[in-house]
């Protein structure tokens, strides 16, 4: 029965997508989507409980033994990513009830959204490389549709850039899979680990590793492959850009973490050294790019890039502490980033725009929103005692531990510049009076809209605070996850059944 614990977090959103599509012209569709998100969260918590109970769990689909069938496998990292995906999904489903207009719902918004969640969850759970590609495709199709849904020139423009660059990355990824399959004769990740280690031509393996780094790098939006992200994330509905900002790039980071701890560990000195420089440049260019923007969402988009650098840095340093920081950062970042986009959406409802030069006065008229903005914003910048502080602390400490002074310096500098951007938003959107002289009162949005949009913001802010004040269990969890990543014996044994 273990196998069904792994299947349910994927199957539930798929079924919800089918049902939500069939009732898309009906208010029931909204409720189906919401109910589906609740059930998905329950299923993923059941998965988490099973993983905490038994360690790494794996299941062979269709009862075909690994490495021939498709394996679903969950270690600590996968399990926590699935849970956080479900939480973000639920928050977005609630938020969407306030934001998404009925006409968009009738086009099948909820079905696409649930499909996206299923795709993300599938990518976190699969133990098969080609299956990972399939989940990337599911995500790409669903996210492209969500990006352009609702119409408009801007959205189509963003959508074309998004889909074109992601297709290129998928092609590189697919070629890499083909080459790797040619070398090892398997697609199962656990089996591939051994096949790659025993490969005669290690030079070719490193070349393939670089192809994967580029392929996943585009998805994760690292330097210099990130330009599609700020070109597209500021156009769709806020609910959609929040779920994109929270989850999509993180799937790329997850895939990097998985491949470069499980499969490509033959030449760590070379591959991970490149990754260090890529991470540092990502962090720095992201935060500098943000400083030049004046649009609420564009600033946040550039900050995604900058933060991605910290996560890949955790992987690149490749010590237990650094990976632990990377895992912790992933979880913290998803909550905080999605929340900031939610706040941006509500600020637009109140003040009428997302361009910071054209809004203001929110602190006076909506103090609750201001307070709820402060929490994720300062967490993002790494203020103690919020969750971002611990995440940055772990990464910087890991860098200092191996005497990587420059890395630690850049991490701290980027943190400082992040504060600059956050205070810029604070100053322009919240403190400064509204340039049109109007009072951006909450009455400008209908009360049920405000309620639906404020609930997930408050919920995620509460989670940020909880992680910040009680980091102990989360840090311990991240530590175990990092241990499992660095020594994947348990993972391999769970997938291949312990047979040599």
């Amino acid at each position: 029965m273990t196998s069904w614990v792994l299947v349910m977090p994927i199957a539930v959103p798929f079924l919800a997508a089918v049902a939500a599509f069939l009732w898309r012209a009906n208010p029931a569709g909204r409720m189906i989507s919401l109910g589906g998100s609740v059930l998905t969260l329950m299923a993923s918590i059941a998965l988490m409980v099973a993983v905490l109970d038994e360690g790494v769990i794996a299941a062979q689909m269709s009862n075909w033994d690994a490495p021939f069938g498709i394996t679903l496998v969950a270690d600590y990292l996968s399990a926590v990513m699935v849970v956080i995906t479900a939480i973000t999904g639920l928050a977005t489903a609630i938020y969407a009830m306030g934001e998404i207009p009925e006409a968009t719902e009738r086009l099948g918004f909820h079905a696409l959204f649930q499909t996206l969640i299923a795709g993300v969850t599938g990518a976190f759970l699969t133990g098969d490389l080609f299956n990972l590609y399939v989940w990337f495709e599911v995500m790409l199709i669903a996210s492209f549709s969500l990006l352009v849904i609702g119409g408009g020139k801007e959205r189509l423009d963003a959508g074309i850039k998004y889909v074109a660059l992601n297709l290129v990355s998928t092609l590189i990824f697919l070629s890499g899979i083909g080459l790797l399959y040619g070398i090892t004769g398997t697609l199962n990740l656990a089996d591939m680990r051994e096949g790659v280690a025993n490969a005669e031509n290690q030079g070719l393996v490193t070349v393939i590793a670089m192809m994967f780094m580029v392929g996943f790098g585009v998805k994760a939006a690292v330097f210099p492959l990130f330009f599609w992200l700020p070109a597209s994330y500021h156009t769709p509905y806020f609910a959609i850009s929040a779920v994109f900002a929270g989850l999509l790039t993180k799937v790329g980071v997850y895939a990097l973490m998985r491949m470069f701890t499980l499969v490509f560990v033959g030449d760590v000195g070379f591959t991970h050294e490149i990754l260090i420089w890529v991470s540092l440049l990502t962090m720095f260019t992201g935060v500098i790019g943000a400083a030049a923007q004046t649009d609420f969402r564009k600033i946040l988009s550039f900050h995604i890039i900058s933060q991605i650098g910290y996560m890949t840095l955790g992987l690149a340093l490749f010590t237990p502490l650094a990976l632990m920081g990377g895992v912790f950062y992933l979880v913290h970042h998803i909550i905080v980033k999605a929340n900031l986009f939610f706040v941006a959406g509500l600020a637009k409802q109140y003040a009428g725009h997302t361009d910071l030069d054209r809004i203001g006065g929110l602190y006076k008229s909506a103090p609750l929103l201001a307070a709820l903005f402060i929490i994720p914003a300062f967490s993002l910048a790494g203020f103690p005692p919020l969750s971002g502080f611990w995440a940055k602390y772990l990464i910087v400490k890991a860098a200092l531990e191996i005497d990587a002074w420059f890395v630690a310096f850049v991490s701290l500098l980027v943190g400082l510049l992040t504060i600059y951007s956050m205070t810029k938003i604070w100053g322009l959107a919240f403190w400064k009076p509204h340039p049109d002289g109007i009072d951006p009162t909450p009455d400008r949005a209908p009360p049920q809209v405000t309620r639906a949009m404020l609930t997930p913001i408050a919920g995620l802010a509460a989670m940020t605070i909880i992680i910040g004040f009680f980091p102990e269990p989360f840090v311990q969890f991240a530590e175990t996850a990092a241990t499992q990543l660095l020594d994947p014996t348990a993972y391999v044994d769970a997938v291949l059944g312990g047979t040599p």
Partner: protein
Amino acid sequence: MNSVIFTAAARLLVALMFVFSLFMLLRGHHLPGGGFIGGLIGAVSFIVYSLACGPAEARKALRISPEVIAMLGLGIALLAGMFSFIVGYPLFTGQWLWVGGDSYETAAFSLNTVLVFDIGVYLVVLGGILSLTYAFEEET
């Protein structure tokens, strides 16, 4: 397309192709064929019909909108895969009920979840392809 010959021939071809697509669907799993190829052939039959009589007429002949067909197919395929939950096997494990024997060689025919899954795939492909082509045809 205003060709009497084509319109007249289409009537014959469409029915023939559609029956053939069902034949391919049922033939699948043990012999070459299956839901995907069957769905493609089925979609082609409706495309020929829409070329002969126009997309509006073809939509009417289909009765249900192609998007709904595709989503229903997805649901059917998934539920067929989840059937193995009842008997305690992992997702998508095929469940077989042999009639008049106990294996492929001896049985007269079988009832199985694999066919249900294939029907789901058939509907996904049919609905997916048709919603794309109809959208293109109606635009021009």
